[in-house]
């Protein structure tokens, strides 16, 4: 009996430790997902306009799953220490449900990250940036979001277009319908700005003289934060789930061995 006593003590200790880690990871997941949902880089309007904002949905699920993991880990610790079968059964069932939700969140984040290609943002920028005639309120909202976001992106990151300023020259766009090519080969935000926010030399910018216009594309500035967001949700969630899997298997084994 002493050996199985020791054995059960060790198993209990391991399960408590496992649940403590799950609790801490749950809080970390909640905090990380709140950070991503708060959109520190202001890129959400771009995703909203592509109607492909599911990495945000994955982050929202992550917030609630993280909190649920924390609460369930507390329940699990109590159940393991008291060796109460009912509590542990409740714990197991709720953990399985939480596991399923977190799995959905990880897969959604990973899958939808694949859709965010340069061509997607290029098409959206050309069709919506400074579009003057919007069809309805939804269109107007998305157009304003895209315009403001791109203006801010181009100014803050000193970039132009998705792959470069040639995007504005190679394709026709909603911008081109309102602003003629002679005065605006590309938006004025693509020009190098002085301290007061106006172009240093407008002719130099229009002609493409090096040093007076931003020749690099904004795709890196967009994809960097989005990659961090998507991979942060997907891979951290995946790591938590791998750990939770082991703890749950141990708990099932423990549950099946204790008596009422």
């Amino acid at each position, binding site marked *: *009996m002493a050996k199985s*006593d020791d054995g*059960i*003590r060790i198993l209990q200790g391991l399960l408590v430790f496992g649940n403590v880690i799950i609790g801490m990871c749950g809080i970390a997941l909640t905090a990380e997902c709140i950070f991503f949902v708060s959109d520190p880089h202001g890129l959400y309007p771009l995703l909203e306009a592509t109607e492909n904002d599911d990495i945000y949905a994955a982050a929202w699920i992550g917030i609630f799953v993280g909190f649920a993991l924390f609460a369930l880990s507390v329940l699990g610790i109590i159940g393991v*220490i*008291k*060796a109460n079968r009912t509590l542990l059964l409740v714990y*197991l069932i709720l953990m*399985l449900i939480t*596991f*399923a939700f977190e*799995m959905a969140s*990880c*897969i959604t984040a*990973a899958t939808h*990250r*694949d*859709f*965010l*290609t340069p*061509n*997607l943002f*290029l*098409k959206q920028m*050309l069709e919506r940036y400074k579009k003057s005639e919007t069809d309805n309120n939804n269109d107007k909202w998305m157009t304003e979001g895209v315009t403001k976001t791109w203006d801010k992106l181009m100014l803050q990151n000193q970039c132009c277009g998705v792959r470069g*300023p040639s995007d504005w*020259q*190679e*394709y*026709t*766009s909603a911008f*081109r319908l309102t602003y*003629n*090519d*002679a005065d605006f*080969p590309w938006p004025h935000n693509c020009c190098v700005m002085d301290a007061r926010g106006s172009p*240093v*030399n407008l*002719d*130099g910018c*229009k*002609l*493409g*003289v*090096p*040093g*007076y216009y931003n020749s690099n594309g904004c795709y890196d500035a967009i994809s960097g934060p989005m990659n961090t967001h998507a991979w942060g949700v*997907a*891979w951290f969630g*995946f790591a938590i*789930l*791998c750990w939770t*899997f082991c703890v749950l*298997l141990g708990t*099932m084994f423990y549950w*099946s*061995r*204790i*008596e*009422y």
Partner: protein
Amino acid sequence: MCSHWVLLAFCCLGQLCADQSLKPQIAAPHLATNNPTLTTVALEKPFCMFDSSLSPNKSYVIYLYAMKESASAISSLVTDNNSKPLNSTFQQTNGGQRGPYKAALFNVPNCASPPKLADVGDVNKVSDVLKQYLFRVGDDGTCLYDPNFLAVCNPPLAPDTTYRFKYVLVDSTEGMMKDQTIWSDPVKTRRVKLPLKIDTWPGRRSGGMIVITSILSVLVFLLLAGFLASVSSAVTVSEDPSAEIRRMSRTIQQSEPRPQLSSE
């Protein structure tokens, strides 16, 4: 080669003729990287092209003529019968379709001290350097619709069209043509694509997504299998009261009495 020399010899016999090798050039591509655009073309000003024809006491002006390449079949003359340069406008020639139109008028660029292109790096000098070095055909988007506009109108060109340009040296007092370059090489303005045609399909799935999906699916399956196995083993044991399966006992809560083994 021989005929070339003969031609030059004839020309130098006092006839007004264009130098065979001098023609308008596009502005240096390392300087004006966005050239030609959809509706504009930036040309180098004619530096040192007309120096042999300049007299010291007279004042000269340079006219720039532009025409669509298709118009050369109709007419490519820039002067009338009396060697007076034509005053055709953009509207009169239908944007250069029926013949050349006068796009600009400026002073003869200084051959002795041309602008230093390296000065474009200096913010204070860049405007002057650009103004002295090149001229942008198609720069003015408003002069066509402005009834008060009296100067030479330089409206935007048509996209995806080939144009040719010519410089003409004019004596400003007499108003007569003194010299001209030949027509430039054809320059085509840009052509645009529709954004509808952009393909936004992402292609194949990334490796990370496949790893996450497959491994998580396997884990969920194993968890469900384990859960069902433990529940079914619990149900089987509890339905068999005479089984002597030893169970690990509770160690912490010893004050509570042992409950009876009851069927679930």
